[in-house]
């Protein structure tokens, strides 16, 4: 095995020209040949093309940057350590891949394990698809299938070499990975209860799937500056679809007009989480189905034309909507809509909508049988109390499978396919809470279903409760991860379930969500208790921390975003969660939700109460604080790499500028209530803190361990970025830097409402200038302290 080689690489060396046919015909049998009749021709062509591109990349005929985008558009992501380096707790070591010269993207080794994202439109899965997913997880991955917060499925630790065959096997059962990543329309999500929900206006399933089909590969969605996410909800009040946090959100609606009932959608645009959360704006309160696609297309075209392309941090549609204002954005879209030539595909699909209608099996599978649960009776009752949703169709229920951290094994998935066939009309869906949902189960079948799930060990109670903790991949596999979100989530899940909180009526509706960085992949911003990864330099060692986010609300369609109360050392987070729960249980008023309680008590007060948990013992006292959950290595940030979210380059500076942006966002919120809300001074202070944070962020290129002391930051910023004119804007020169200096010099002066508002605006411009400065530095190769020193010495000769 010492001579292990890379198949495509070998072929690329042997062949003078790319020849995907030869790649496969050298083998005695191939998936390509075996599945030829089952794969739609267009999908087959796309996969062949990608396979050819792999060969061309190996021959050096496709640039690595270009190839990275090509594979990302096939959902083939990089994974942590794929730059060929890993910190082992003591030092960074090179991972000795056999062909380190071969890359699949900038600084991304071809042979490094990667991740495959698999789009599941509206979360709908058939049993046949589940079986194939199980097979490929077993053969190409680590036998684990991971459900994501956008109803996708992800496989990890894959070889890029395996992707063409894997894509073929998926295509043969109707699954495409096209545009699972990249700057295009991502998986179109929908409420998993669509069609069975007691509160929906109508079933959005078909609308979601047909929208996904329409935009897949559409010419108007190929030139976005960033990704574009669409979600459908059947109602406005439940969070199953999370429409308010999407680039394009559709909520089903009915209205009466001239005595006739009409169906349509409330259409929202410009929502998003990420570092700077934005609630979507109402674009139109009633879009009839025949206008759904043309209007969405017009939105896509305006976004493609006017959206930011150079600065990826400002390229989501939310920034365009914010910049233009919703009224001007709407005007431009309607103007665009008027110019579109009629496309028959806008309405042809409407005929297919009735085909999405589902019904249950005619009779319960266990009709006439008595299922004796025996010693499982109590556990069944608990499971039934938390995992069952009674459908609006009498006699039927949905069953949520509480998957730990969204994971299940290939064997479980295969077994579940049998269960779905036996108990349902083959109606399974993934959910945004990283679970699976079985629909149309006859209520009398629930005991037998429970036993079937128990045999697969998929019978865990507490679905969609406080113990059903959501986590993004974090430092386990994500290149951007700062903290071990999954390690912590696993720990919290175990502790909360052990205490039985999932059955406590007062607590069970609280959601806990953990992200490894600020990018909100776990949707921590809308959890009642959210966390995202950070770190602090203490005792000359890095200590993993998490921002505590409170004030968010999962119910009411996740329409309230939480804010940071500061950072907690990761190892103290379980204590903090216990503390917050106790605080709530002891102090809540009757009927008061957790987020209402937080708002009544006030974040400032809670922050003070949580303060004792922020203490970190010295390294000598307790080195366990200097490691992360589930990891034995001393913590480091040395493994944070280049993000691959649509090829986005994310550095330490990016992270901290984003944090500055969050701070300024919080300052903005403080001014929401006008000048009488008592938050004016706090808002001004926060705006200054945001600028200081942004200055510190750019200084990290000069000194990665720059202190948190504002005076030191101002001094060094002036020396290295102002005096050298490095921070100067090409047009207004040092104006933005002067905002920081002025705000800092006047920090003791009491702030008026107008002054605070101006400070917030100035901070916004300063942060923007920090992004720009950082981009200029990256382009000039000033991307490390060493490079900075070299540059600085040429500017300021050492005397």
């Amino acid at each position, binding site marked *: *095995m*010492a001579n*292990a080689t890379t198949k495509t690489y070998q072929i690329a060396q042997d062949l003078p020209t790319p020849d995907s046919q030869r790649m496969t015909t050298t083998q005695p049998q191939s998936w390509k040949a*075996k599945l030829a009749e089952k794969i739609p021709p267009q999908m087959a062509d796309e996969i062949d093309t990608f396979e050819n591109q792999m060969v061309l990349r190996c021959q050096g005929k496709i640039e690595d940057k270009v190839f990275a985008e090509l594979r990302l558009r096939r959902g083939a992501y990089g994974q942590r350590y794929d730059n060929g380096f890993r910190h082992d707790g003591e030092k960074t070591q090179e991972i000795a891949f056999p062909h380190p010269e071969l890359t699949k993207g900038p600084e991304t080794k071809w042979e490094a394990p990667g991740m495959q994202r698999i789009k599941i439109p509206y979360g709908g899965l058939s049993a046949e698809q589940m079986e194939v997913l199980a097979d490929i997880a077993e053969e190409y991955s*680590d036998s684990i299938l991971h459900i994501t917060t956008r109803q996708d499925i992800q496989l990890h630790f894959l070889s890029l070499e395996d992707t063409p065959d894997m894509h073929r096997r998926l295509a043969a059962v109707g699954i495409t990975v096209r545009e699972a990543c990249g700057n295009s329309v991502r998986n179109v999500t929908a409420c998993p209860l669509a069609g069975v929900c007691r509160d929906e206006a109508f079933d959005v399933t078909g609308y979601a799937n047909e929208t996904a089909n329409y935009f897949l590969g559409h010419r108007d969605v190929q030139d976005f500056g960033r990704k574009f996410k669409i979600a459908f909800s059947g109602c406005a009040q439940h969070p199953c679809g999370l429409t308010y946090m999407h680039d394009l959100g559709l909520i089903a609606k009915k209205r009466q007009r001239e005595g006739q009932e009409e169906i349509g959608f409330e259409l929202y645009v410009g929502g998003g989480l990420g570092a700077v959360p934005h609630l979507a704006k109402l674009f139109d309160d009633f879009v009839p189905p025949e206008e759904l696609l043309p209007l969405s297309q017009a939105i896509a075209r305006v976004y493609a034309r006017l959206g930011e392309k150079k600065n990826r941090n400002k390229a989501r549609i939310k920034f365009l909507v914010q910049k233009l204002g919703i009224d001007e954005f709407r005007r431009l879209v309607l103007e665009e809509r008027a110019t579109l030539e009629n496309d028959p595909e806008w309405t042809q699909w409407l005929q297919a909508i009735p085909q999405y209608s589902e019904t249950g099996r005619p009779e319960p599978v266990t009709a006439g049988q008595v299922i004796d649960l025996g010693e499982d009776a109590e556990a069944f009752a608990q499971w039934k109390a938390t995992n069952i949703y009674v459908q609006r169709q009498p006699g039927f229920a949905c069953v949520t499978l509480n998957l730990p951290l969204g994971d299940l094994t290939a064997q479980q998935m295969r077994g579940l396919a049998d269960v779905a066939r036996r108990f349902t009309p083959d109606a399974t869906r993934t959910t945004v809470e990283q679970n699976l949902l079985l629909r149309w189960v006859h209520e009398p079948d629930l005991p037998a279903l429970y036993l079937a799930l128990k045999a697969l060990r998929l019978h865990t109670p507490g679905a969609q409760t406080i113990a059903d903790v959501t986590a993004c991949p974090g430092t386990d596999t994500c290149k951007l991860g700062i903290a071990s979100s999954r390690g912590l989530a696993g720990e919290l899940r175990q502790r909360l379930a052990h205490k039985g909180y999932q059955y406590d009526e007062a607590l069970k509706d609280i959601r806990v969500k953990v992200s490894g960085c600020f990018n909100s992949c776990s949707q921590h911003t809308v959890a009642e208790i959210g966390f995202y990864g950070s770190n602090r330099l203490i005792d000359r060692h890095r200590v993993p921390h998490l921002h505590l986010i409170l004030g968010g609300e999962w119910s009411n369609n996740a329409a309230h975003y939480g804010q940071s109360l500061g950072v907690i050392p990761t190892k103290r987070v379980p204590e903090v969660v216990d503390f917050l729960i106790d605080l709530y249980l002891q102090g809540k008023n009757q009927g008061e939700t957790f987020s209402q309680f937080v708002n009544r008590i006030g974040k400032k007060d809670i922050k003070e109460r949580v303060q004792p948990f922020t203490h970190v013992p010295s390294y000598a006292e307790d080195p366990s604080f200097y490691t992360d959950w589930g*990891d034995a290595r001393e913590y480091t940030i040395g493994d944070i790499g280049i993000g691959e979210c649509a090829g986005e380059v994310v550095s330490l500076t990016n992270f901290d500028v984003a944090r500055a942006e969050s701070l300024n966002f919080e300052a903005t919120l403080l001014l929401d209530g006008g000048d009488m809300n008592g938050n004016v001074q706090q808002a001004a202070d926060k705006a200054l803190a945001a600028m200081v944070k942004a200055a510190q962020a750019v200084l990290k290129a000069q000194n990665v361990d720059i202190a948190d002391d504002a005076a030191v930051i101002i001094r060094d910023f002036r020396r290295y970025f102002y005096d050298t004119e490095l921070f100067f804007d090409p047009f207004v020169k040092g104006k933005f830097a002067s905002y920081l200096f002025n705000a800092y010099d006047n920090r003791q002066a009491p702030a008026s409402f107008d002054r605070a508002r101006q400070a917030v605006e100035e901070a916004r411009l300063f942060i923007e200038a920090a992004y720009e400065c950082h981009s200029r530095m990256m382009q000039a190769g000033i991307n490390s302290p060493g490079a900075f020193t070299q540059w600085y010495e040429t500017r300021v000769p050492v005397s």
Partner: protein
Amino acid sequence: MDVERFYLKFFARENAIDETGFIPIFHDWIRLKSLPGTLIDVADYRHVPDGPGIMLISFEINYAMEHGGGQFGLSAQRKLGSDGSHSERIVELAKRTALFGSLLEADSRLNGALTLDGGRFLYAANDRLRLPNTADAFAALQPDLQAAAATLYGDQPFTVKRVENDPRERLTALVETSGPVPIAALAG
């Protein structure tokens, strides 16, 4: 037979052990390059029932102290090709797995809590294209397994039996000797 992907599993004599203890050991092995191959990372799947437990991911092989099928043991999933016949590859993977197992058994941090049975292992073909779960495929596989087992166990008698399982599962065989074999004995 040209099969690159397959999986072997040696069973632990114990049913339960605190798996947390494997994490620092595997990280140390990566740091110290204690095993041959390109070692990459540790994956923690303790939260998944009957799952892969704690894995050590390498470029060539995924090792796992896992609970697949409800049985605790050490598995190795071979991912990549190299020279040699299928039976030679089986022998090589068995030896590598045995080396992994013997190092683990001997690690003082486990206090002797782990014993792996070297005299019995599962083979699963991780390639449904070339080795589907059929009687014909098993007939083609059996000579390779027998040759590999003969190399591994020498004069000790052994059996190679097909495991009767769901046809959608991987083609699986159980190789078993008549007497106990320490895992370290296979590593040489």
